[in-house]
């Protein structure tokens, strides 16, 4: 074992593969936050009046709030006045790939997501967001044929204000928490999707997107609505270039599922985690929540989190409709000095609601991994059921794993099941693999992938493979 530890130090020098900066002209507001900045953002985005009012309201509320301190994470104070709140490549709104800045395309190339190929990739529509503004949207037409609306959020604000007015803030109100309030004031862009009644969205919807501009906070906003009997599967994948400064990222995602509707939301997150000494990296403070508003509706969150210096994220479900189901499948991997405090919130309100939680935390290096989960069964939630499984795996001696399950049951008919385990990756397992000719690195990634299997199998096929690769890359050098 001691031999292994030495290698951990020696080899924990995995470079961030995507650490490059694209040099394209962009329009960036100077750092700072005040009402004037918000007015400018709104004006630049050509927003209707109601949106500016909402932004200002959220901003004023945010000013009254304090940054939360309960998370099991440590980071220097964020200087909110030191951040620029708007950045956009100058050329935008292009119809075909030929018009896209070649350098931008090259950037995507390096990320392994050549848009040209994406077009052909069966059934994947890509809404590529570069910094704050969506640059190109493909597959819109195919989707339009079946009546699916899939567009950048800011476009929806202009085109479908009634839908925005109806659903925005209906799941995550701007008063929800510190970061949600900030996001509501200064949000930039991301996706809007509506799948109409009875429609099964014919393809996986996917957004790739990265943070590029120096010191640019990112405040994406996503809203997905599945009407009665509709089905949609959405995947977000993110990468960001190498930076020394810590970059703030505070997204809000709202999902609404009506009667018999299903939304699957999958995330692969591999933002810059900081270097091996813990310098740099993204701060990721995300609010994601789904509302199972209708009977027998179904929302499923799957996340593979391997990036960011700090992850603070609790995708949850409000199970309002009778018979609705909420699921949370999570893999969180922390290596070097990464910290993750993540988990889920399942609020059972309707009768016979079910929630299923499977969390896999992996810590290597000096990584610190916290699972924080809340399951609330309200009074009217007759026959509610929850199953929680929470497994941690430790690689090396300097990392840690913590579990904080909060359970609140107000209805005695509820059935709760909780399982938890912590394991160390075994020297005997690694030796067994080596004896069969498999290298230590491959062995670790094999064992970790096996450990995460229940979660990875929830991802759409091609993304499951991507996630496996990502886990292997993120683990490189964690064991000798």
């Amino acid at each position, binding site marked *: 074992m001691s031999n292994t530890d030495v290698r951990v130090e020696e080899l924990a020098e995995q470079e961030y593969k995507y650490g490059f900066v694209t040099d394209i002209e962009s329009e960036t507001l100077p750092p700072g936050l005040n009402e004037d900045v918000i007015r400018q953002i709104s004006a630049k985005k050509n927003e209707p009046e109601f949106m500016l009012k909402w932004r200002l309201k959220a901003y004023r509320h945010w000013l009254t709030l304090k940054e939360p301190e309960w998370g099991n994470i440590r980071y220097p104070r964020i200087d909110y006045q030191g951040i620029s709140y708007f950045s956009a490549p100058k050329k935008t709104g292009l119809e075909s790939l030929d018009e896209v800045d070649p350098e931008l395309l090259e950037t995507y190339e390096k990320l392994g997501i050549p848009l040209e190929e994406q077009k052909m990739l069966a059934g994947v529509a890509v809404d590529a967001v570069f910094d704050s503004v969506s640059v190109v949207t493909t597959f819109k037409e195919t989707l339009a044929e079946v009546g699916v609306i899939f567009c950048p959020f800011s476009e929806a604000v202009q085109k479908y204000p009634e839908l925005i007015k109806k659903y925005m803030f209906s799941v995550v109100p701007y008063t929800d928490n510190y970061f949600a309030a900030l996001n509501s004031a200064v949000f930039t862009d991301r996706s809007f999707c509506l799948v109409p009644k009875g429609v099964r969205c014919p393809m996986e919807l996917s957004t790739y997107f990265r943070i590029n501009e120096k010191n640019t906070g990112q405040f994406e906003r996503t809203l997905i609505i599945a009407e009665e009997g509709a089905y949609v599967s959405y995947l977000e994948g993110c990468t960001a270039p190498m930076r020394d400064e810590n970059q703030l990222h505070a997204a809000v995602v709202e999902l609404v599922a009506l009667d018999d509707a299903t939304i699957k939301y999958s995330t692969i997150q591999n933002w810059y985690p900081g270097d091996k000494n813990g310098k740099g990296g993204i701060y990721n403070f995300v609010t994601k929540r789904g509302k199972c508003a209708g009977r027998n509706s179904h929302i499923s969150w799957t996340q593979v989190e391997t990036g960011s210096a700090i992850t603070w994220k609790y995708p949850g479900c409000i199970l309002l409709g009778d018979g609705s189901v909420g699921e949370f499948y999570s893999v969180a991997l922390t290596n070097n000095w990464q910290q993750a405090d993540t988990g889920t919130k399942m609020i059972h309100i309707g009768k016979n609601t079910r929630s299923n939680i499977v969390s896999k935390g992996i810590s290597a290096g000096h990584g610190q991994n916290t699972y924080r989960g809340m399951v609330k069964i309200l009074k009217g939630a007759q026959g509610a059921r929850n199953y929680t499984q929470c497994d941690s795996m430790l690689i090396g001696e300097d990392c840690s794993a913590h579990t904080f399950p909060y359970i609140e049951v107000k209805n005695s008919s509820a059935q709760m099941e909780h399982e938890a385990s912590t394991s160390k990756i075994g020297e005997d397992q690694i030796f067994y693999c080596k004896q*069969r000719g498999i290298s230590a690195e491959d062995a670790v990634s094999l064992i970790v992938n096996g450990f995460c299997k229940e979660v990875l199998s929830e991802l759409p096929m091609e993304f499951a493979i991507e996630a496996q690769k990502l886990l292997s890359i993120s683990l490189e050098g964690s064991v000798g």
Partner: protein
Amino acid sequence: MLEIRNLHARVDDREILKGINLVVNPGEVHSIMGPNGSGKSTLAQVLAGRETYVVTEGEVLLDGDNILEIEPEERACRGIFMAFQYPVEIPGVANTYFLRMALNSIRKYNGLKELKPVEFVKYVKEKMKIIRTSDDLLKRSVNEGFSGGEKKRNEIFQMALLEPKLCVLDETDSGLDIDALKLVADGVNAMRSPERAFIIITHYQRLLNYVVPDFVHVLVDGKLVKSGGKELALELEEKGYSWVENSSQSAA
């Protein structure tokens, strides 16, 4: 093929192997017997390269190269296979996936083309004709929830698949019922060839009825104290280890 010269190994501060000498030629089957705790598994693990055991003296030559400085995975690629006394479970990793990864690592090392999933399935089907195993075991996670006997059979199946040069079986026969024992023996016999050698660690004559060894060695307290032909195993069964222990002392 294999030459062990004056091998000494320790764990923590305790010397376990105290000067082992053994030559194994291609095509030979050697059986090692000996009381509990005498160092049989330790010898197997040292051959396979487990870092827990520190070699303090001696050499192990495989085809003339000293392999003691070589990583375990490379030794495996060079053709050393050890069937574990206690096979390890790897939850969530499908047996076939594991085997394909192992086979391809070894093939790659030896300059052979890696097998694609489809080719691999074909290859597995071929091997299943020689070593009977169930589809069910292949689909399940590596050794997870396998019965003791199933784990041992799985080791033998892996061995057949990886086609090693030197097969070290550490008590593969322990805990097997009569049918499974025959299955394992048939597998080993099917794999016997002029190029391949076996070291079979066992406590029982039983297996040796089916797999007839060319040599039997007795390991006591970290040393090979007696060697002979297959009759030695029968003699041991009859007289017990105290017989060799005493005779070795009188010889010393």
